């Protein structure tokens, strides 16, 4: 187990290191550095001022120096400064984190709540009408842009029920009910999409397990159907499902980028889009790195969970 954990940790560190190089290079691909952009919006250019600012921000230094300085800052948890808002990026990100986390976990909750039971039902009723209906529904979920689904839901609420989505964000500590109302719809829109993948994996894992000898034994000894399916079979089918839930988490963050924009939720993902549109590159660079860290940590957590759930793994791969 120890060897396995060490190996996973090492891979995570290497991955993040590589990602930092990729992100850093990408940001240098963009036309113009931050100083150009700042001066561009100012309208006039005083070369001396520009040189001064370039020196202050360190963009006149060699790339290697800029890179190592950045990595040092990120490693110390310093997410840099937003030049657009003229304040530390962390001060902008911090109040936005709970919004994104609440949305992500609610969406994950819905996706598991929908995906796992429907996947099991679909497997038990393989090639029957119910299976077809569920499979078509899940494929439909994979085919709709989450942001569009969100818009349609809002439209439906507004037209049919006369309900208006709250324009401003409501904190759960101020008004829990209003907060949940605000988050349930976007979480469902994102979660439905993710549930489709979870359902497909659950279905195929269950189909495999249901053919195993020990399941036949359980049937043969007269075990109740619900018990065989939901306890004996699902337990062993849950391993691939755990993996896909971990992958889903990363996928979900991608989905949030657009969903937060549609539902007007002041989350981290939307701030990334805003920063890109405002060309606030230092913030984009740090936020992207931040997302990579979250994704790698989520994958690491899944790997560890997997090793804990399946004792065979820690001996095999260590």
């Amino acid at each position, binding site marked *: 187990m120890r060897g396995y954990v060490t190996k996973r940790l090492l891979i995570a560190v290497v991955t993040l290191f590589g990602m930092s190089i990729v992100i850093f290079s*990408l940001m240098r*691909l963009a036309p113009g550095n931050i100083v150009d952009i700042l001066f561009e919006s100012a309208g006039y250019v005083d070369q001396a001022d520009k040189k001064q600012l370039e020196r202050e921000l360190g963009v006149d230094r060699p790339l290697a120096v800029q890179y190592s300085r950045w990595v040092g800052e990120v490693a110390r948890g310093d997410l840099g400064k937003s030049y657009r808002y003229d304040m530390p990026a962390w001060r902008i990100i911090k109040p936005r984190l709970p919004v994104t986390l609440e949305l992500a976990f609610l969406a994950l909750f819905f996706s598991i709540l929908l995906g796992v039971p429907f996947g099991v039902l679909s497997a038990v009723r393989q090639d029957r009408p119910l299976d077809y209906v569920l499979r078509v529904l899940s494929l439909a979920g994979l085919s709709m842009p989450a*942001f569009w689904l969100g818009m349609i839901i809002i*439209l439906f609420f507004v037209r049919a029920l006369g309900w208006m989505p709250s324009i401003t964000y409501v904190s759960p500590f101020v008004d829990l009910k209003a907060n949940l109302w605000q988050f349930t719809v976007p979480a469902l829109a994102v979660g439905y999409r993710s549930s489709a993948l979870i359902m497909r994996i659950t279905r195929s894992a269950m189909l495999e397990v249901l053919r195993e000898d020990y399941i036949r034994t359980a049937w043969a000894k007269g075990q109740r159907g619900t018990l065989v399916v939901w306890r004996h079979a699902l337990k062993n089918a849950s391993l691939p499902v755990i993996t896909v839930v971990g992958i889903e988490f990363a996928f979900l963050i991608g989905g949030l*980028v657009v969903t937060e924009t549609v539902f007007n939720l002041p989350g981290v993902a939307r701030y990334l889009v805003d920063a890109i549109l405002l060309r606030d590159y230092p913030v984009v660079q740090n936020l992207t790195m931040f*997302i*990579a860290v979250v*994704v790698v940590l989520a994958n690491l957590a899944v790997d560890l969970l997997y090793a804990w759930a399946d004792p065979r793994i820690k001996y095999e791969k260590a």
Partner: protein
Amino acid sequence: MAQVRALDVVADTQILPIERPRGSALGRFARKKPLGAAGGILVLLLVGTAVLADVLSTHDPVRTSTNVLVAPGADFFLGTDNLGRDLYSRIVHGSRISLLVGLASTIVGTVLGGLIGLISGYAGGKTDLLSQRVMDIMQALPILVLALVLAAALGPSLPNAIVAISIPIVPRAARVIRASVLGIRELTYVESARALGARHVRIALRHILPNTMGPFIVLATAQLGGSILVEAALSFLGLGIPEPYPSWGRMLSIAAAEYAERAPWLVIWPGLAISLAVFGTNLLGDALRDTLDPRLRGS
């Protein structure tokens, strides 16, 4: 009279059905996989619309007019947008953008990833280890986030959008093809080719590559829907296809938010077009996966 009868008999025997699997390969596929066939029809519809866009459209998709926000009716099948452009014609022309960007980025991404997977799987050892790590790194960002950052770094244009969407596909394609190469590499016929003294490049390209076509087609079909969705999302956020190309994703961004209540058709139709196109490729991809490569089922 008797002669005529005899001829009839001859004619009858000639058209007697011969014992063989009924229908063409396509027909059998349709009977066995009705959902896949439905997906195929949707994809054909998409391709047909894209090819015949000029014939099918009733108005100029980019010309503005004073007929602003007209409800769907006889003149404008699906209504008009806030600039008085005919939504139906824009959606018809938008199919070209979706299909072009979707296909191009899928092909670029899967071919590039496939080649990396082929080399990595065939060479093995350190090459494999290194490329695997690089692919891991590329997968550390969600597809949409990586595409978003790429699109931002490259700037908005049609070719740049294609590049931005294809890069995130590369590691995913490399993984699938590598796995399939690893299996094929150990087969006896590859061993015999090696024993005959065939060079590595020849073995990889002539003996292994053709056998990865099954998983490759499955992968590409499945990715096509994903690429269309990413394009829609990028354009929706204003980082994808720039004006004047009518992109389904961007149609949703400009109009939808502001005019949704007054003109719900602006939200409904472009989104439905995206969903149907992606739904079609997904249905087809699923059926192809089951038919061509049972091992990939459910993955």
